[in-house]
């Protein structure tokens, strides 16, 4: 055992002991509830205590620098922390785009003042951020955005409309792509931080096919934004946005199917469909598909781990691969769960269905967004073929 290994062992022992003392047993395997309703946090003493404990230690954002309230852990240490969490059904009590996308980006591109102002509240789980990227009519072609920010001296004057801004109903701040120059497409974009309490900001929730309202439209009408809220230089917004999207894809692709462990499909199938004399799931066609799906899911998880292992330095190019493979896994699982639950799997409301059953249908529908947001499946395939495989432009 070399020096590094023994240090890691020591860290593992320390982490285990600390978690044992601090993780409320009542929350074991309840990460999904948490995840599901992010970015709002569940109420209750244990939830608050756990968040407070983890955030004080900086482990809500384990890899971020300690000077801004992060944990300062290495990638290896972080893996160990996650491993120990998983063993006890634990989870990191911070989630959402501030932690997974905006924070890392601001740490790279922000000024010292901007970091000092915005990062520590994120580490403490206090501020909720939303992303002002997509616009109606732009779709996958993000850079065709039209929301304008006009220079009016000390402030920018922002006018326009954003869509698909997740969590904007509860957000304190919005990081926003705005057009400061109409003569260039990509080079005319800037990256602005907007206080959601500013006059002229209006939020209208969007109802999805799953019934959820996790996204909204945001309207900006003559909103004044101080110039100190510009991240990077004028017209450097697209560069920052691309970096942030890389974090986003990584997050979407790399994240486990949920924070906790999902119930294996075969177990659900045995319950809902039953087994034959030899103990096999009675629907043999389904049984064969469950196997293939579980294999895919397992290989996807292994790939997430491999990519994390390989990408010791900087962002990995594999994020598009991970995202598309995850879409496939998630959506197949959703469809199969509906199929398995049969007449109990197509409920929408009422007491005839358990909460789990109703959730499974809604989740199946909601999952369809996984291959649309953060760059569609098709956009990812473009990225893979062009950037990784070097197949040039198709036009």
């Amino acid at each position, binding site marked *: 055992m070399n020096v590094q290994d023994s240090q890691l062992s020591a860290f593992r022992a320390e982490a285990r002991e600390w978690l044992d003392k601090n993780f409320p047993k009542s929350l074991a395997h309840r990460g999904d509830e948490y995840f599901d309703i992010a970015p709002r946090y569940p109420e209750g003493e244990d939830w608050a205590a756990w968040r407070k404990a983890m955030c004080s230690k900086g482990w809500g954002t384990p890899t971020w620098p300690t000077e801004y309230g992060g944990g300062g852990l290495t990638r290896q240490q972080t893996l160990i922390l996650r491993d120990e969490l998983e063993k006890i059904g634990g989870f990191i009590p911070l989630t959402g785009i501030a932690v997974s996308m905006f924070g890392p980006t601001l740490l790279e591109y922000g000024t010292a003042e901007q970091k000092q102002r915005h990062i520590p509240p994120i580490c403490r789980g206090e501020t909720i951020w939303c992303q002002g990227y*997509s616009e109606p009519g732009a*779709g*996958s*072609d993000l850079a065709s955005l039209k929301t304008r920010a006009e220079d009016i001296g000390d402030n920018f004057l922002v006018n326009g409309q954003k*869509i*698909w801004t997740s969590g904007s109903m509860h957000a304190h701040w919005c990081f926003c792509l705005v057009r400061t120059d109409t003569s260039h497409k990509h080079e005319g974009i800037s990256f602005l931080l907007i206080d959601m309490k500013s006059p002229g900001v209006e939020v209208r929730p*969007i*109802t*999805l*096919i799953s*019934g959820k309202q996790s996204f909204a439209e945001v309207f900006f009408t003559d909103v004044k934004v101080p110039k100190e809220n510009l991240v990077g230089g004028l017209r450097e917004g697209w560069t920052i946005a691309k970096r942030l999207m890389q974090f986003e894809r990584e997050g979407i692709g790399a994240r486990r199917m949920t924070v906790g462990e999902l119930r294996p499909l075969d177990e659900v199938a045995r319950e*809902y*469909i039953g087994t034959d004399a030899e103990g096999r799931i009675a*629907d*043999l*066609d*389904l049984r064969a598909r469950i196997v293939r799906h579980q294999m895919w899911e397992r290989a996807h998880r292994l790939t997430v781990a491999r990519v994390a292992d390989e990408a010791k330095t900087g962002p990995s190019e594999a994020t598009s691969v991970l995202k598309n493979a995850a879409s496939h896994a998630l*959506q197949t699982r959703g*469809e199969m769960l*509906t*199929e398995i*639950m*049969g*007449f*109990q799997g*197509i*409920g*929408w*409301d*009422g007491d*005839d269905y358990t909460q789990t059953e109703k959730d499974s*249908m809604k989740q*199946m*529908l909601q999952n*369809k*967004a996984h*291959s*649309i*947001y953060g760059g*569609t*499946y*098709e956009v990812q*395939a473009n990225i893979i073929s062009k950037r990784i495989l070097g197949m040039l432009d*198709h*036009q």
Partner: protein
Amino acid sequence: MAVLTEEQTMLRDGAQDWVTDRAPVSAFRKLRDSGAGTMDPALWKEIAEMGWAGIVVPEEHGGSDFGLTGMGLVLEEMGKQLVASPLFISGLVAATAFRQMGSAAQQGEWLPRIADGSAIVTLAVDEGNRHDTARTALTAEASGSGYVLNGTKTMVIDGMDADAMLVLARTSGAPGHSAGLTLLIVPTDAAGIERHGLATVDRRGHAKVTFSGVQVGPDAVLGEVGGAHAPLEKVLDVARVGLAAEMLGMCQQAFDTTLAYLKTRVQFNTILAQFQALQHRMADLFMEMQLVRSAVEHAVREIDAGGDGAEEAAILAKAMASDFANKMTRQMIQLHGGIGMTDQYDAGFYIKRSRLLEMTFGNAAQHCERWARMRGY
């Protein structure tokens, strides 16, 4: 599309016009948003007036005897716009059950009322998580000269709007046996019946029905006591092909809507329809849809011909239509992108309705199993 006779063409065109005009998907949206009910009685009246409820009913009982060939065309058109009506369950399934299993007296009593739409009759067969008639546990015990029914049925199609139900009950044997099953006609207002609507994802009128000592007379039995399984399976095969026709229409519409969207939506300065990856995906979907159409049209013919080929054809049609409807509705959302995910757009209605139809009267996997067993492997 199969080559149609003049009469069939008129029927199809009439259905197309009526659906587009009177019952487009926006009408279903209004119905859903209003929360008023799961079918629109005014539309049902129009449907009945046009004679569609009597398409498979013999002329002597007030129908037009156009067969499934005719009904399939109407259901396909209704499927396109997701029309909510009891035409399928009453006009096709119940009517077929009476034709194939009912006595002359029963036919005389029910078929004219089904044909003119004054009675809505549904089928109450399912009990568990998935369609499986042999597992029927609801009992019909002999009592006096009639029977007493006890048990619960679920997924009773248009059950809240029905005037009567054809109930599959166990008169002997144990759940799992196909022998000992009996089909009985039971009015929904009989004493001991409790119904409540299921809030299914497609927001149609499925019901759960509880039978507590429901008394019926000896004339309630259709066909042989204890021998309903085989003849009912034939009726159900007709129902499955009807569902396949509805799903085919749904797929055709989902495809057409998606194609139209791709031809107008611009991304990266290019109309989406110009992206070769999307062209090839649409080409593959179109190809598969042609196979599904062939399977459905073949099944319709085989059912009407009444020969040995009907069972295989019904299996093929239901399995392929279910699989393709699943795929097509998924692609409808994917190819529409964000807008397809919103409730204000119709794509969600298609995927939700599809998931339900896929499993009604047996899903693709169950019919694949039937296919294998029929061929002895």
